[in-house]
């Protein structure tokens, strides 16, 4: 199986880096790139979205500091919409940030849907960690 994965990040460079490392590992589906929280919510919780319960849980790497909705706001909104029965049947959200500070890590723990906190930049080791974390939730 390949892990379906979305990156939500407003920095093109950072999306590119994720894409390169995930491609390299071979464990992931083609990266779906979203350049804002708004775009992510529209794409996965909007009218056009079709959920398929047979799908693997969707892995989301969520940048925190973005123009417009922050990663936290986006995750909270996704959680709210999920509770209404919208969007993908299962999501595993990992916050993805360069700040690496306690304030953010603690906040990440407060949102049920958020399952972890990954520090930028991605490298081979962190990709392996993401894969293992994802599989522990299957």
């Amino acid at each position, binding site marked *: 199986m390949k892990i379906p994965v979305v990156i939500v990040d407003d*920095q093109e*460079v950072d999306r590119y880096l994720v894409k390169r490392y995930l491609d390299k590992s071979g464990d992931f589906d083609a990266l779906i790139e979203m350049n804002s929280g708004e775009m992510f919510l529209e794409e996965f919780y909007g009218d056009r979205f079709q959920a398929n319960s047979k799908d693997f849980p969707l892995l989301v790497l969520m940048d925190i500091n973005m*123009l417009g909705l922050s990663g936290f706001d986006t995750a909270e909104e996704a959680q709210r919409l999920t509770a209404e029965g919208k969007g993908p049947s299962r999501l595993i959200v990992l916050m993805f*940030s*360069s700040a690496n500070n306690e304030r953010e890590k603690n906040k990440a723990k407060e949102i049920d849907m958020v399952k972890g906190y990954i520090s930028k*930049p991605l490298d081979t080791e962190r990709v392996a960690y993401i894969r293992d974390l994802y599989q522990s939730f299957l």
Partner: protein
Amino acid sequence: MLQLDKYKLAIEIAPVPMLLVSGNGKILLTNTLLDQLFEYETTALVGENVDILVPENSREHHPVLRDAYFKLPSKRQMGHGRDLSGITHTGQVIPLELGLDSVTIGEEVYALVVAIDIRQRKQHEGRMNLAMDAAASAMIMVDQQGLVVFINKAAVALFGYEENEILNQPVEQLVPQETRRVHPVYRDSFMSSSQTRAMAKEKDLYALHREGHSIPVEIALTPVETPNGKMVMSTIIDLTERVEAERLANHKSEELARVNNELSQFAYSASHDLKAPLTSIVGLLRLCLEDLDDGNVDEVRENLQRCLQVSDRSAKKIEGVLEIARIGRDEAVFEPVDLAMVIQDIWLDLTGINQNDIKLQLDLNHVEPLLVELQTFKVILENLLSNAIRYSDEKKVLHCIEINTSHDENFINISVTDNGIGIPHAKQSIVFDMFKRIDERSGDGLGMALVKKQVDRLGGTITFKSVEKEGTVFYVSLPRKSGDHA
């Protein structure tokens, strides 16, 4: 006169100066002590009218008072509550305390007068008053009825009254209206318990100044036994300066808390916004190394290019942050500027020579020349204008920016109005925050933070009004520097 002789002996052996006076004021007997006190030869006073011993300024009324006594004779003190004095043979006025008693000898009623020299006591009192007047704390002594019987100089100064406007008046006139009604109750209870204590412990205490304002005070109460009964000495400490100092200290610590908060906000922002590009560069360089190993030279070139771009942007951002951080370090230099020229230059820089699909209108009503810190002034205008240009509304046919100036006595007011897309309501609170960007047209999120800090430093204000889809007006007010009043 045998009976009189009997008295003579009694009076003579009395340990205090005494004399016997008849109803018409004639002195019948004196003792040696009295003669000495008034500096007369022994018995020289006998046969004289007693008024001879009364100082001239009260001599006139004395016979009337004396007559009144003889109509209703009793044992009492003379002139209660007044300072009494007598005059000696040599014209020396001496303070006295006089006791009166009536003596009936045969048909006649006489007055037996005891005169006590209170010069020493007065001197002592005088010294006490001097000492209390010299005290830094205000002092007020109150008798059992609540009347002020003594007030020292510091208290007179503190309350703004003349001494005679307070003496013998109820102390309640110094108590603020809110507590005036209950004060006599407290006063009575203190009089009956009479232990030294602080007034209204643990509560803020105020006294009333003659002009009606309240003075924060601390008051210590001390019971005092005096010959005239129990009294209360209040020592009053004016807390005005202390309260003011506390207020200042509080203000300072609030200011510190604000700056501290700003700093931690800055640290938080910096951890995001300055670290993020470095993280990207690290990621890119790592990729480059791996790609080099794999021989993907094209990929390496592309990613080094990306690194350069991110580094460039990052360096600019840090310059911006430093510019904000440096604000206020350098001494301000004010110079006269021609505002129209300054605007013209900025406009050309921002739009280029051929730019004409945005219309700039000037409505300048201030007095030239304007004295400003040119660099700062340019930064403010540049940011306001470049925002107005960047956020113009594509859907509108005409893009207009208007700069309006006016002045009043103390301020020069500049407004920059655009008919752009406006600032979304939800974003209006972060306009001046560092690193906060409104949308993809925003720069580093430093421009308006810089402007705000500069305006604050100059002692001015910056505000704005914005309606989405209609446009935005920024209002800047800067204090006028002396020299541009001409």
